[in-house]
């Protein structure tokens, strides 16, 4: 991709952040900045588009394929679009021993989706994830969106409801059978 067609979003909108990120690594090891730059790009949305990846490739003097392979390998980057908010419920063994699978089912029911699916309005994707280092505070989930990642621990269904309403600015099903 030639430089004049490439996106300039990071370099124009986040020039201070880009500079700060590059400073963390030796001048001849710029490639190290690929992961923090991908996180930075997520402020604009949780999808590493071709134009995002090509801008990062340009900044770092690496190929777009190298950037794409990083997106493919690490689970917190996304090649495809999903919900604006990703609700990632830990259902790994320690949490599952404290009811995480049931909890995940109830969250799905609340939002009318299955695990891995996105709500129709595009606000939420619900996923099950591996241990998040909060096993003593199950059930728990994290929310990933343009603002970063936030933990929610020792959750009940009504806690989740509050989080969903706040994030999605939506009214959701408050029928009693959906509650705990």
């Amino acid at each position, binding site marked *: 991709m030639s430089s004049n067609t490439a996106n300039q979003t990071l370099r124009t909108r986040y020039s201070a952040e880009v500079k700060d990120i590059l400073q*963390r*690594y*030796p001048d001849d*090891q710029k*490639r*190290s*900045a*690929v*992961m*923090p730059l*991908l*996180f930075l790009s997520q402020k604009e949305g949780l999808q590493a588009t071709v134009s995002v990846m090509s801008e990062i490739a340009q900044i*770092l003097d*690496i190929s777009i394929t190298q950037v794409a*392979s*990083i997106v493919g*390998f*690490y*689970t*917190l*980057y996304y090649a495809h679009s999903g919900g604006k908010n990703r609700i990632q419920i830990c259902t*790994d*063994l*320690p949490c*599952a*021993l*404290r009811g995480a699978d049931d909890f995940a089912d109830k969250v799905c029911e609340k939002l009318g989706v299955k695990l891995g699916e996105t709500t129709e309005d595009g606000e939420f994707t619900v996923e099950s*994830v*591996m*241990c*998040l*280092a*909060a*096993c*003593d505070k199950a059930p728990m989930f*994290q929310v990933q969106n343009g603002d*970063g*990642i*936030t*933990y929610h621990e020792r959750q009940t269904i009504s806690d989740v409801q509050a989080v969903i309403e706040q994030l999605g600015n939506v009214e959701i099903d408050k029928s009693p059978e959906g509650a705990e």
Partner: protein
Amino acid sequence: MTEYLLLRHRNRGEENIADLDTYLSLGGFEAYEKVVTTMTPQEVIDIVKASGLRGRGGAGFPTGLKWSFLSDRFPRYVVANSDESEPGTFKDREIMEHNPFQFLEGLMICAYAAQAEVAYNYCRGEFWELTQVLESKVRQLNDRGLLGRRVFDTDYSLQINHHLGAGAYICGEESALLESIEGKLGQPRLKPPFPADRGLYQLPTVVNNTETLTNVPLIISRGPEWYKSIGTEKSCGPKIMCLSGHAKHPGNYETPLGITFRELIFDLAGGIRDDKALKAIMPSGASAPFLPASDEVLDTPLTYEDIPKIGSQLGSASIILLDETVDISWAALKTMKFFEHESCGKCTPCREGTYWMYHLLGRINSDKAEQADVDLLGEVAQQVVGKCLCPLGDFATSAVFSGIELFQNDFNSHIPDAVNGADNPNKNK
């Protein structure tokens, strides 16, 4: 223990030690100042060696010895491993959230001992908010002149940077972690060479776990003899035991190494939830064999040397408790789902083996298996163990081998007409 040494924020009467002024008022950074202004790097290494401190990231390798292996080339790097992704582990997070300066001071002392002028703290990507807080703590240290150029007017300069992972357990393995900082896929390197010789950017590098480093300021300020007096001869010092699963009160427990499972589970954590019977213990998260809840096991001290004698590992002391209601074949399935997901794909036995073991365990758990599938499960595990580039492959087989050996009925009960079905207590569940 009357005094918390690592989880120091829990000591009653102390204020918020995550606040820099409070930490300083309690003697914080005196150990760092002492080493930088009065000691040679070699003297620091000798003290840490003499303390008997062993790595808390899982392998229990002697920390001072590791530091002494650095090749004689510069620049060098020091990396804190805050990837904390083993199922059942949540100690490094509590340290960094509530006692961050003791950890950072340990990292800084380690950097001085290694003569590294740049240190990285590699945090798992999910620690996103925490990492922002830590970055602000580092800025405070820069502002106070504890980090930066020529600290304490000496020739020593030090900078700390954070690097966030992005959701890959394998990046906790030290060489994969270094690849990840280099902006590459988090896949382990062939060893040797070890990081002490060719680490970050092929330069000599020390990688230590967060909890390991948090011990270091105390060893400097109170001395190696004091430190050695805690714990057992071969497992010195305090340790944070992460207790999860069916404990009545799950959480982090800081104790001297060498307390028994029984003391931890029943005296400190209130026993088993709903007063059920304990069935099995996973002492090292998903990565080491199950232990049956026998008296022999319960009376075993939590040390690097004693747990292998009963067939498992201390690891980073991520202790998962399973009560009598748990079907061990289901626990093995959950465990395998983790490894199948986390295999980095670099070697075939691990990539394919975890896939097949997960598949077979799924079949067993949905009551669609035959005896041949249970046998095949063991055979696949046999094809994986000892044939992989990094320990993850072996880890993945632990739950299979020990599960089938110790809790055979939990596997066979899913099979129609299993040979021993008649005397199987789980049969009619």
